[in-house]
């Protein structure tokens, strides 16, 4: 099944190829196959498919990946804007 894609050109995912050691952990943990391996280094292949879950950055041993990780949940955004407890529906 074709992976669903959300809004274009909004994602905060960044990869510093200088720091990348090519371990491939980011490819393993990404649930949307955003990253690919090229010539011994990871590279961002499908940026708009990224949901900013933060799995790649969390598991990068050299901190080559940065992303403003968060849960894409409107209820959570509303709750935090209203200063309420409780993140999301889950």
């Amino acid at each position, binding site marked *: 099944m074709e992976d669903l894609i959300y*809004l274009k050109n*909004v994602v905060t995912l960044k990869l510093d190829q200088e720091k990348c050691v090519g371990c491939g952990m980011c490819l393993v943990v990404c649930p949307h196959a955003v990253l690919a391996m090229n010539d011994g280094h990871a590279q961002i292949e499908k940026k708009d498919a990224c949901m900013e*879950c933060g799995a*790649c950055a969390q*598991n990068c041993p050299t901190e080559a990946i940065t992303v403003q*990780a968060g849960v894409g949940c*409107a209820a959570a955004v509303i709750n935090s804007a209203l200063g309420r407890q409780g993140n999301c529906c889950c």
Partner: protein
Amino acid sequence: MRMFHGTGGFQERNIMKKSSKKPLESVVFPMVALPPGEENGMRPADLHQPFIIGLLKTAIGEIPRVSSALSGRDRWGAIKARWDVGRMHYTVDPGLYALGTPDENSPVLVSANYKMSFDRLRRALPGRDAWILVLNTGGINVWCAAGKGTFGTQELVRRMEFCNLSKVLNHRRLILPQLSAPGVASHKVKKFSGFEVVYGPIRAEDLPSFLDSGMKATPAMRIKTFPFRERLVLVPVELVEAMKIYLLILPVLLFLGGLGGPGGFWYNVVHAGFFAAVAVLSAIVAGAVLTPILLPWLPGRAFALKGTWMGGLTAASLVAFLLPGSHTTGGLMELVGWCLLAPAVAAYLGMNFTGASTYTSLSGVKKEMRWAVPMEIGAAVIGLGLWITSRFVA
């Protein structure tokens, strides 16, 4: 709520123990509060939980055994949780469990203490022997808990140590669900505990073939899709949550319907009030049921836009009822009012489904909300104003 931030959890604590005379509680793991229900310290899992089928004698004591076969009670619990009944308290005790008769070579599978997560894991492994390590995620599923950081490096390392996991094993490997990766830093787990983290497949059903192929996941096992069935099972919670608000505003709708109008108050409640109640209910169904189900086929990427299409469909069917009376000013105002109200409600509920979906980014949701929320509020306020006014205009 990311943990550690480059400081060393267990190492840090050990250093503190030796060098600091300050009360330990205030310096140990300052980043994250202790898990819910365990503020006074970790407890072993209760051996009398209804799904436990026996005890396994091991070097570290008796470990509760579970089966891969779910009971009627387990299945009924899952149905209730899907309908939002007790969903936030549907838990198992954190700790170590034995699936089948595991030994020191058996794999260790890590899960969350949301009972549906735990049950889906064991159900996927008929005829297998494995250790199941349940983390305290406060009763939240793996992916959401990882996003919050409660399914995280710190909880994993602490739970392993508390359960004496290493003493029942002659290997040092853990299999984690791939979707726990937002909370767990595998290289830090290795550093703090010596255990290697292997990320298993996203879906528990893929675990048998993952295990049989020497822990190799196919590319398809690593992709989180959002097929029809998965969207469908999420609909009841969306509907129940919306209906809770609906039941609160229902008396208001009926009361407003009773104002003005051609007949007496109660006559109007039965006619205009009832119509308004049905109209809002239709908009809720459009936003909370039809939008999730038809998600991939609705035009546009923003969820509020997808909801707007379904709300438009609701408005179109309401227009069919209202068109005969729209030759008067009041009738026309009522018609336009519902053409704004129904899409506003459906767009809001569609937007809310971003939280349940499996592919929306926070940056995207914030961008969408910057235009969607003002439009939803604007359309709802103007629509409501027009409808109320129409009750007093001939």
